[in-house]
């Protein structure tokens, strides 16, 4: 598989997996407005995923469409970062996971709008507008929870502590990143680390949350080595098209 296909799939898989996670909140959110918000965020992410996966299919030229990538690959073929596949947990876990991703994605889209690949630049520009809106919401909730009640603060801090180990992978490049950077198509993931940390620190300060101490960071999602959680999620997401092959509405 060419570097560009792998590269495009990673962005698509991040969006797809987080979309599926977010959508699972529908009818379980603490208030109805959040049901609507999480559903809308999920819808944007599904849309973004479709744009990326369709492009991956075109580059590959084997006739795979977005559905083929979404429903007919096993966990090891998914290349999303470990962060987005983490289970929903409580509302604070979901907000913190979303905030970490939204902040990273907003920086990534900014880089990719300068991509030499026009299609990638277009998808990034489209996604940037949606992600900016998601980031405002997840940031505001992070502050609300952190600077909220004793209970909400404790849960938010616990979520930050638990999910922190999955943030390192966001800034870890591999040979695919290097090749794409070389070709003027992609960016250096490590270059997003400082701006990400700077903004996250500012948010933690407003939210009266503490940034966890540096420690071991999990890695491997981009290369298909996933946590157990992804398999369960995919089993639910893929059961229908796999059990009833070719089923249509």
């Amino acid at each position, binding site marked *: 598989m060419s570097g560009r296909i792998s590269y495009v799939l990673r962005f698509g898989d991040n969006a797809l997996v987080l979309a599926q996670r977010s959508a699972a909140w529908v009818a379980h959110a603490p208030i109805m*407005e959040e049901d*609507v*918000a999480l*559903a*809308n*965020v999920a*819808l*944007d*992410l*599904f*849309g*973004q995923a*479709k*744009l990326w996966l369709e492009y991956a299919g075109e580059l590959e030229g084997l006739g795979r469409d977005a559905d083929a990538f979404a429903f007919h690959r096993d966990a090891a073929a998914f290349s999303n970062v470990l962060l987005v596949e983490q289970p929903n947990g409580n509302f604070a876990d979901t907000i913190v996971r979303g905030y970490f991703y939204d902040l990273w994605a907003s920086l990534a889209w900014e880089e990719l709008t300068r991509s030499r690949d*026009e*299609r990638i*630049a*277009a*998808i990034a*520009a*489209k*996604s940037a*507008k*949606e992600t900016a*809106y998601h980031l*405002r*919401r997840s940031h505001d909730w992070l502050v609300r929870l952190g600077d909220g009640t004793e209970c909400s603060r404790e849960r938010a801090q616990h979520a930050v502590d638990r999910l922190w180990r999955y943030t390192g992978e966001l800034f870890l490049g591999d040979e695919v990143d290097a090749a794409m950077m070389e070709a003027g198509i992609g960016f250096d993931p490590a270059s997003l680390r400082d701006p990400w940390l700077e903004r996250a620190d500012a948010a933690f300060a407003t939210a009266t949350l503490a940034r966890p101490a540096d420690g071991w960071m999990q890695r491997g999602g981009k290369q298909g080595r996933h946590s157990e959680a992804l398999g369960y999620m995919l089993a639910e997401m893929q059961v229908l098209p796999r059990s009833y092959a070719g089923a249509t509405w």
Partner: protein
Amino acid sequence: MVASVWAWLDDVPDPELPSISITDLGIVRDVYEEGGEVVVALTPTYSGCPATAVIERDVTRALHEHGVDRVRIERRLAPAWTTDWITPRGRARLTENGIAPPDYLTLGPVVLSVVCPRCGSGRTTELSRFGSTPCKALYRCEACREPFDAVKPY
């Protein structure tokens, strides 16, 4: 031919904002003829908007009804859609139908208040950043106390 197609598309409503047409929404980016086909270039509002497929079907159907047999839909992603492309007529129709039109982004970072489409008061409160469709948020007017949808500046 191209001018007629634009006029016909003026009568194709947006499925989720049926008070305005797809041309007023600013999602028809181009109409041209190529190799005996009429090509309509459409851009999505939000990338996951479920109305996209319906709009493509409606456009094809409208052109077929006007005797154009060979229609091709081109999905155009760049430049990305912005609510600044909603026409003045579209904005007026939104207000008439109880939906607050969005601020112009090109006005810069000036924060304008969302005006109640029912009574015209600027004393409004955001109830939810997300509304009944991806492009809208939910507001309430503090003057007439009516809740209403507002198209998000995008």
